[in-house]
Structures are given as structure tokens and as C-alpha cells.
């Protein structure tokens, strides 16, 4: 059936017919193939948390604070308890009696599970109801009577450190201000010296740049089903988590449950983007409810709860400065950041990196010195600061440097492409130690840049732009060149709550030559069931469709830290390749026995083991699998079976990069921005499944257009969140994005077993500055050098009138 919409012919975003032959191949290893999980997902047969139904299951709903900052005077729950279908009503005081009212965050702060003393952000959890059905639970919330006493909230982050600002975190002993942490990177003195020199002999550019608060907004909201088995006391938690193993350990620490009595199952997940890394109060409430009542309890957020209370991202107010020579050689970069962390520091980042990996703000450029300083503060807003598809704050870092390079180009009246080409780290400089201490593993930037410029026809576009400017039309071309640091991380430097960021992996080959690989990471839509089967297939020659990928169940998978920060392929992907090599080594020994040749004389190629120089004598991995489990002797000293397990500790992060170019047209009368074209050339090292890579890039680019043009979590002066629905918090649709044009170069990671670098977040990181740079470039005739996101028609128009205000 075709539905034609009259009048939609203006939408020129025609989707090219997919080349099925291209994607439906069945490679034995790397290459395009359709995703193994899609027959389930596209037919609506996935099993998500909310699909879990258990006998006798009860439903939990959370009462949230209407105010951003208020003391709780009293809570009367008698009317709610009297509701005929209500099983329990629990307040912060009830939890405090069990010592469960507070829990640790992933950043060594604490967060209230249910507020006891006061509420610190609008929609904070205050009490919960457990009832026989979802409707009754929600009805009973209205029967709880809470008396609040208003306290002035801290909403404008710029006033959080004022002497007279109300103290938000008076729960922390001795806290006399709203300061959360201070962080520094680079060499201040060396940087200041370069700036002093540039002030005399070169040029300094300065700009205030805001990365507004945004939200991951996964289509599936967060939730869980908690089931405490009454005899054994074992908790099974079906949960929307990107990091099931890390969550298990944290629950053991919070709830005091022994870790072997906790099983976390992350079923299909409808998008995560970092939103499903933290542990939210709702999960803890459901566990407590099941413990207390002895029945399974389901908690699922509604859309509003997800947007207003769960981990936001960004919210950095940055001053950027570049010192350069007059002919455009960048010498030093300096930044000062004010970071809004909301009411509790819930950032998900390795412990030693409170600002995530923001330290890579020096970008892709070879410079003399750099320095960053950051003050993070508490405000009366929802907690978080999650890795929203940002590889731990690299989104902010890349936005800062790529916006600043354009600011420099503006002042120097230089072409922004030329300026970037002039400053790139050169291929022979890798591995490159950045001025803030990051060891870039490999890179070859100029070919990626040139490829993007060729694909988009850069020179012709500049000519077109010149013609249009003559006629008063507004057209802009924006470039961003990014380098990410992903795949956290080496356990010597990186841990979350003391858990090292290494990943286990286990591979078993069954007697008939089929296999199962067990992972610690957890897909939220990225296609792990395909990619990881392909990684194993590439190493041992079993076709991907014969390899089952098991993940998301802590009882059935080895320990590891989970999927975020583009770490699955860099860390668990390496583990999968290495565990397969371990199995292959054993297979080779078995093959030597079967072929009656020495191990050294056996060579392996694509699933077949041959005697060197006698290609007729060969066995396949399937033959070997049967032999490994079958009757008859194996080579001496070898145990039966064909399986292995490893734990991979990455030597370094991996550094994917890319060149993005965006073309926009702006209606000069209405200030509406139309993204006309977007070319993305990515280098994520070795490519496993190019189709999946393109899918990740398409998603990230769409995300970036959303942040650049429309997304923002905003608040009024009293701290009311104004973005509590998808009609208020806008995310882009197919109508706002062009037909994406993707390309790639391949610069393998030297230390990763298969040379792969990770692609999950590249496009989210790289696209916002490309779009913003394009819009600002279009506004050049108005003398505009900078404008903040989100570039809604109103904001663009106000900027054109000279009335730009920061989105704070």
C-alpha cells in the first residue's frame, strides 16, 4: 500500500532505494550484511522491559516534587494507603529507617533515592506507591499530601557561586557554597606565555560559547521489573541498563545484597545514548518494593518523567581563546568552563576524569600549549551530565575548538578549510602526545578533509555562495574536523566506582561447529548481535549466522563495564577477536593431530587449517569442533572442548576522527534554517560492517542537527522544567535532515587487535559544530561571528537583529 500525501513534493529528501544485494551478503567475516537482530526488532517482536509480565506483578509510580527547591514539612500518606488497590506507600523517611534513602552516584557523590530533608530539583522523587495496576498506582499519587516550604532556587548557573546563593547541598557536611568540583588540564604558565607573545606579535580571539543542556531522549523510557525470590532471596532485575555488570556491583553496594544473589537482565533496549548508564532512584524503589512486599514490581517512567528527571547532557558555559600567528598558525588554546551539574553530581565518567575527556579540547591541531580550567557547580536542576553520545564530554570539547577555529578564520578573513589544513597534526607525528596529555594513537587528517571537500564540491559551493551574497541570499558552508578519544579504558587510569574498565569475553564452539559468544557489553540498537558475530567469524571462519551473541544477562556473561562512550568495539570487540584467536590456537593444535603434522606446519585461512605445502590435506573449523568434543584421542596434554575466555584491558584509547561539511540556506525573511547538504567522512579504523557504521553515522548526524537547531532543556526562573514532552523538547524528524552523504578513510588503530576504533558517537560529536558553523557563515553579511545553539528561527532572527543572548 502506498500512501501519497498531496503537497509533500517539496520534501526533496528522497530516500535512495536500498541496494539489497549490497547489504544482504553473508560475509564470513567483515563486510556488509543485514543485522541479525532486525527480523525481531522490525517486526515488533523484540522483548523490552515493559514487555516483561510476571505472575502477581505489581506496579510502582513515583510522586515527584512540584518545586525546584523546598523543605519537606510533612507527608501524609494515609489516604493513599487506604486506596483499595494500593499495597504500599513509601516515603523518604521509610527508606531512611532502612538506611536506603541515599545512594552513591557514578561520580562519588550521593543522590537521594527519595527526598528526606528537602527537594533539590523539580520532579525529584519524594514518595512511591505500589498498587495492583498502573492506573491505581498513578491515582493514589494524588492522594498523598505533601507540605513544602519554598526555598529560593539556584537556576541561573552564573549565580550559583554568588555569596548569597542558597546552599543546595546542605546534606553534605560543612558545605558552604554550591561548588561541586574544580578541574584543570594542561600547562597554565606555558599557555599564558604564548598568549602574551601573541598579544604583541600575533592575534588572540576570544568567544563565549554555550553548549546548552540537552537530553538523550531515548524512545524507550527507563524502567525495570524487580523480582526478589522469596526463598533464596535472589533478586532478578530486568532493567533498562547499558551496563548490567556495573549495575549489579553497585546494587550490591547500595542495597547490601550479596552479589551472587543479584541477576541483572537487560532485555532489548530502545535507545540509550548514555541515558541508561546511571542508576536511577526508580530502580532502587522497585527493588525495595519487591523486597518488602515479596512480589515482582514493575516501574516504567512515562515520557515526562524521562525528560525532566533522568540524566541530561552538556550544560557547559565555555570561554574559548586561541592564540595564533597572523598568517593562521594556531599556537595555543585556553578555556575556562562553568559546568552545571544539577542537584547531584551524577556524571558517568571514569573517576579520575570528573570532566570526562574534555581534555581533548585541543582537537586535531598541532599546537605549542594549552590550558583548561573548570568550575563545576550545583544548581536546582535534574542531576546527570551523562555521556549522551558524547564519548565523555568530547562533544563539548570538539564544539569548543571547532567553533573557535571558525572564529579565528573570521577574524583572519581566512578560509576555514585552509586554516584547518594548515594546523593539522601530521601523519608522521603519530602516536602524538597532546599538550593536555592524551596519546593520539593514529591519524591521517588531510586525506579525510580533502575527501570531504571533494565530495561536497567545496570550491564550487564557495562560488555559489559569493553569487548568492551578491543577491542578498543567505547560504552558509560549515566545516568541523574532530578527533575523539574512545574505548575507555586502560585500567591503570580508568575505573568507575573502583571497577576497572576492562571487558571479559567468552567463546564456545559447539560440536557441530556452531558457536556462542558471550559479551559484557549491551547493545541499545547498535547491532552488536551482528558486529560481534562478524568479529568472531573473521577470526575463526564460522559464518556469522552460525554464531549466537549472548549479552545483557549478568548470570550468563562475563564481567565488563558496559556500552557507552563508544567503548564496545574498542574494548569488547578486541576481547572478542582475542578470545577467537585463543580458540583458533587450540583448533590448530587439534588440526595438527588430525592431519598428522606439526603445529608449526599448519596454516590457517578462513575457517580451514591446511598442511603447508600440501593443500589437499586440510580440515575445517567444523571438523575440528566435532573432534574436540568427539571420541578418540586429542593431541597430548590437550583438554577436550573448544572454548576460551579472556579479559581485555586496553592499552590506550582509540582516536577516531572525521571531516564534516554542512551546507545551509537561511530564509532571510523568516530566519528559518534549512540543512541542504551534509557530507560526513569518518575514519574509525578497520571497518567491521560498513552498513552498520553508516547507520550509526546517520543517527548521530540527525542527533547533531537536533542539538544545533532545536533541542534544549530549559527552565523558567522558578526552576520549572519547560521541556517535559516531545512537543516541547524537539527532536528532529526526517523532514529536517538532508540525504546524508557518507564517506570514509581507514587508518587502523595500531594497538587494537583488529585496528578498529569505534564509531558510535563520532557523528554526534562532529555534526553540531558543522551545522552551527554553517549557520554563522551564512550570517556573515550581518557581521555575525558567533551564535549559540539551538539555532531556532527566533534565535537566528534575533542574532540578525544584533540581539543574540546566551541560552542559559
Amino acid at each position, binding site marked *: 500500500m502506498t*500512501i501519497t*500525501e*498531496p*503537497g*509533500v513534493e517539496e520534501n526533496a529528501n528522497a530516500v535512495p532505494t536500498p541496494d539489497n544485494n549490497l547489504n544482504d551478503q553473508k560475509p564470513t567475516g567483515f563486510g556488509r550484511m543485514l543485522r541479525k537482530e532486525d527480523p525481531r526488532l522490525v517486526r515488533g517482536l523484540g522483548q523490552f522491559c*515493559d514487555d516483561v509480565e510476571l505472575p502477581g506483578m505489581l506496579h510502582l509510580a513515583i510522586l515527584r516534587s512540584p518545586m525546584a527547591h523546598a523543605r519537606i514539612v510533612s507527608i501524609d500518606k494515609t489516604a493513599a494507603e487506604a486506596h483499595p488497590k494500593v499495597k504500599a506507600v513509601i516515603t523518604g523517611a521509610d527508606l531512611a529507617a532502612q538506611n536506603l534513602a541515599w545512594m552513591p552516584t557514578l561520580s562519588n557523590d550521593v543522590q537521594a533515592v527519595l527526598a528526606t530533608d528537602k527537594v533539590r530539583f523539580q520532579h525529584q522523587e519524594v514518595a512511591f506507591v505500589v498498587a495492583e495496576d*498502573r*492506573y491505581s498506582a*498513578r*491515582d493514589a499519587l*494524588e492522594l498523598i499530601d505533601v507540605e513544602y516550604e519554598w526555598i529560593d532556587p539556584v537556576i541561573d548557573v552564573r549565580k550559583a557561586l554568588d555569596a548569597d546563593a542558597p546552599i543546595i547541598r546542605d546534606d553534605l557536611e560543612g558545605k558552604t557554597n554550591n561548588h561541586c568540583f574544580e578541574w584543570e588540564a594542561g600547562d597554565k604558565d606555558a599557555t599564558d606565555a604564548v598568549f602574551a607573545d601573541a598579544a604583541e606579535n600575533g592575534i588572540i580571539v576570544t568567544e563565549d560559547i554555550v553548549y546548552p543542556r540537552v537530553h538523550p531522549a531515548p524512545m524507550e523510557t527507563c524502567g525495570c521489573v524487580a523480582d526478589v525470590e522469596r526463598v533464596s532471596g535472589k533478586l532478578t532485575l530486568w532493567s533498562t541498563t547499558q551496563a548490567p555488570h556495573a549495575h549489579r556491583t553497585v546494587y550490591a553496594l547500595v542495597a547490601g545484597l550479596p552479589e551472587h544473589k543479584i541477576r541483572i537482565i537487560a532485555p532489548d533496549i530502545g535507545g540509550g545514548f548514555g541515558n541508561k548508564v546511571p542508576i536511577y532512584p526508580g530502580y532502587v524503589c522497585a527493588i525495595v518494593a519487591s523486597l518488602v512486599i515479596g512480589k515482582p514490581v514493575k516501574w*516504567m517512567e*512515562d*515520557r*515526562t518523567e524521562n525528560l525532566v528527571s533522568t540524566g541530561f547532557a552538556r550544560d557547559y558555559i565555555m570561554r574559548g581563546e586561541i592564540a595564533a600567528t597572523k598568517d593562521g598558525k594556531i599556537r595555543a588554546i585556553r578555556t575556562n568552563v562553568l559546568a552545571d551539574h544539577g542537584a547531584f553530581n551524577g556524571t558517568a565518567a571514569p573517576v579520575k576524569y570528573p570532566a570526562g575527556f574534555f581534555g581533548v579540547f585541543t582537537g586535531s591541531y598541532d599546537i605549542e600549549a594549552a590550558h583548561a580550567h573548570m568550575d563545576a557547580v550545583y544548581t536546582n536542576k535534574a542531576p546527570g551530565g551523562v555521556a549522551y553520545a558524547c564519548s565523555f564530554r568530547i562533544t563539548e570539547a570538539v564544539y569548543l575548538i571547532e567553533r573557535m577555529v571558525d572564529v579565528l578564520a573570521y577574524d583572519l578573513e581566512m578560509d576555514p578549510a585552509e586554516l584547518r589544513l594548515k594546523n593539522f597534526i601530521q601523519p608522521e607525528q603519530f602516536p602524538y602526545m597532546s599538550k593536555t596529555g592524551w596519546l593520539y594513537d593514529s591519524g591521517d587528517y588531510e586525506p579525510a578533509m580533502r575527501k570531504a571537500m571533494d565530495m561536497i564540491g567545496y570550491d564550487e559551493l564557495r562560488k555559489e555562495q559569493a553569487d548568492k551574497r551578491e543577491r542578498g541570499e543567505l547560504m552558509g558552508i560549515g566545516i568541523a574536523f574532530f578527533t575523539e578519544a574512545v574505548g575507555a579504558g586502560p585500567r591503570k587510569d580508568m575505573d568507575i566506582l573502583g571497577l576497572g574498565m576492562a571487558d571479559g569475553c567468552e567463546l564456545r564452539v559447539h560440536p557441530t561447529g556452531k558457536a556462542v559468544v558471550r559479551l559484557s557489553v549491551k547493545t541499545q540498537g547498535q547491532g552488536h548481535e551482528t558486529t560481534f558475530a562478524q568479529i568472531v567469524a573473521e577470526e575463526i571462519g564460522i559464518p556469522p549466522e552460525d554464531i549466537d551473541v549472548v549479552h545483557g544477562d549478568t548470570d550468563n556473561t562475563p564481567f565488563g563495564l558496559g556500552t557507552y562512550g563508544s567503548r564496545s568495539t574498542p574494548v569488547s570487540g578486541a576481547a572478542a577477536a582475542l578470545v577467537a584467536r585463543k580458540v583458533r590456537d587450540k583448533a590448530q593444535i587439534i588440526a595438527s593431530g588430525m592431519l598428522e603434522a606439526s603445529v608449526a606446519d599448519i596454516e590457517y585461512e578462513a575457517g580451514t587449517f591446511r598442511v603447508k605445502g600440501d593443500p589437499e590435506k586440510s580440515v575445517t573449523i567444523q571438523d575440528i569442533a566435532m573432534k574436540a568434543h568427539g571420541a578418540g584421542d586429542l593431541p597430548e596434554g590437550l583438554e577436550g572442548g573448544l572454548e576460551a575466555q579472556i579479559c581485555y584491558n586496553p592499552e590506550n584509547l582509540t582516536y577516531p576522527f572525521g571531516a564534516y561539511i554542512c551546507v545551509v540556506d537561511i530564509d532571510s*525573511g*523568516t*530566519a*528559518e534554517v534549512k540543512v541542504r547538504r551534509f557530507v560526513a567522512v569518518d575514519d574509525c579504523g578497520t571497518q567491521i560492517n560498513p552498513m552498520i557504521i553508516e547507520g550509526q553515522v546517520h543517527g548521530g548526524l540527525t542527533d547533531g542537527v537536533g542539538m544545533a*537547531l*532545536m533541542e*534544549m532543556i*530549559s527552565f523558567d526562573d522558578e526552576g520549572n522544567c*519547560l*521541556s517535559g*514532552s516531545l*512537543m*516541547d523538547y*524537539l527532536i*528532529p*524528524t526526517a*523532514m*529536517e535532515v538532508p540525504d546524508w552523504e557518507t564517506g570514509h578513510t581507514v587508518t587502523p588503530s595500531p594497538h587494537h587487535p583488529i585496528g578498529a576504533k569505534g564509531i558510535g558517537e563520532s557523528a554526534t560529536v562532529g555534526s553540531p559544530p558543522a551545522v552551527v558553523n554553517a549557520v554563522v557563515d551564512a550570517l556573515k553579511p550581518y557581521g555575525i561571528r558567533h551564535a549559540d545553539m539551538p539555532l*531556532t*528561527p*527566533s534565535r537566528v*532572527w*534575533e542574532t540578525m*537583529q544584533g*540581539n543574540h543572548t546566551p541560552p542559559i
Partner: protein
Amino acid sequence: MQVPAPFEYERATSVDHAIALMERLGSEARVVAGGHSLLPMMKLRLATPEYLIDINDLSAELEYIRIEGAEVRIGALTRHRQLLESDDLAAVLPIFRDAEKVIADPVVRNRGTLGGSLCQADPSEDLSAVCDAVGASCVIRNSSGDRVVSMHDFHRGPYETAVADGEMLTEIRIPLRPGSSSAYHKVERRAGDWAVASAGAAVTMDGDVIADGRVGLCAVGPNLTNVEPISAALRGQAPSEELYALVGQIAADNADPSTDTRGTAAYKTHLAKELTIRSLRKAVARATGQA
């Protein structure tokens, strides 16, 4: 999942049945048409009606677009999608298709209705501006019969209309005159979003001059129906860019928008002018066979 408060529900079998139910149940009863305004409010518990009277079975009585002589009659239960797709309607009143292309998204347009849109009376709602521009009148029925009111009298303010308890909107009537055409322009932050601001214009040409012209505005202030000075300024004038600019300025002067997350008051005021100019330009071009 957001869940509404408890309510009782009945499907009406005829318009008379619906009206009888409403008379009996009083102010706690609400009609549900497409449900795309009412149900989201109920799920957020911003609306908690005790009774819902579902009129979706009343297509035979309420779902039609009839072009009869010098009048177009549209039933209150006509869906956005039908207004979008009707070639006959687009031929005489192209403003409907212009507007429907940018109202909500296909999911909402498949169910949402003309009657629901007008009765919701959201200040950012597009079809009120459309109906206002084309000089529509509204047929309201109660147990004692029909009454017909102008758009000006229909709109009492944000979320308030002339439809009283025990009454229903059944039909919209639009006069057709030769030499006429119309157009609509909207600025939204994203496809499917409510208007930042929008403007519709309808003109009737008499040779080289505009015999009659009207402009309807949306999202630029409460109750901005029938901007009489605009009609006065257009009457008997030859179309020109100067005239459009003048009229656009009157629209801006009459606009009283507020600053919100969709945009600043200054920007919306600017749009009242800009979109009025564009709509007038296009309506005249269409009426004179140039578009």
C-alpha cells in the same frame, strides 16, 4: 506510559444522541473527536472529564466536504487528512491544503478533526486562522436546533468558544465568490510543531483591484480574529508590494504575542508582518492566475 484519571465512556449513535447525553451529563461531559488534543491533556491529567462521549461513529452525519453553489460546507468530524487531500477543496480554497501540509504530522492528521481544532481554540491552532481568513461561520447545534455564528463570535478567547454545555459544533460554512483565492504561511521550529506564528490571507479580486481581503493570524496573541483595519486597508486597492507591506505592518501592530520557548515576542511580531505579506502576495497571485 501516561495514564488518565478514571472516566466513563459512551459512543454516540447520532448527533441527537450525543447532544442528549451532553445535556444530561452537564459540564463534566466532553465530546471526543480525533482525541489528539483531549487525550494528551487527559493523560497529563490537565483535563479530567468524568464522561467522554465518542462521536467517531457519526461520520455519516458529520464527516463531509460539500461544495454547493456559492458555499462550501465542511462537517465538524472531517479529518485533517481529508482537508489536505481534497482536490475539490484545494481548487476553491487552496488555503486549506497550504495549512494542512504544516499542521501536525500524518498520525495526528489521520484522526484529528476540523471541529476538534476549532473547539479546542488553542491560540496556536491553525484552522481557526484559516477559517477566519476565509470568513467562515460555525453551525452550533443543541436540543432546540441550530444557530450560526461568525468566527469572530465563535472565538471567546484562548480555549474558549461559543459552544456551551449541551451543544456541539456540527458544520463550518464558507462563502465562495468568483475571483477569489487564498494562501497560508507558517513558521515552525520543526515539522509537526505548533506554529511559532502563522498567517493566512484570502482575497477577492474585482478586475485589477482587491474588492475584499481578510487576514487570519495564529499564535501572535489571544483572540486575534477579524483584523478589520486590514480589510479596510485592502478594500478597493490595487495589489502592490507597498500595499502588502502596509497591511503587514497593521498585522504586526495588532499582534500581541508573548515570549516563550517557541520564540521572542519581537520575532513573532515580525512574523505577523512577514507572513501576512507572503500570504497576501500568494493569494493575489493565485486569484489573478499567476500562481
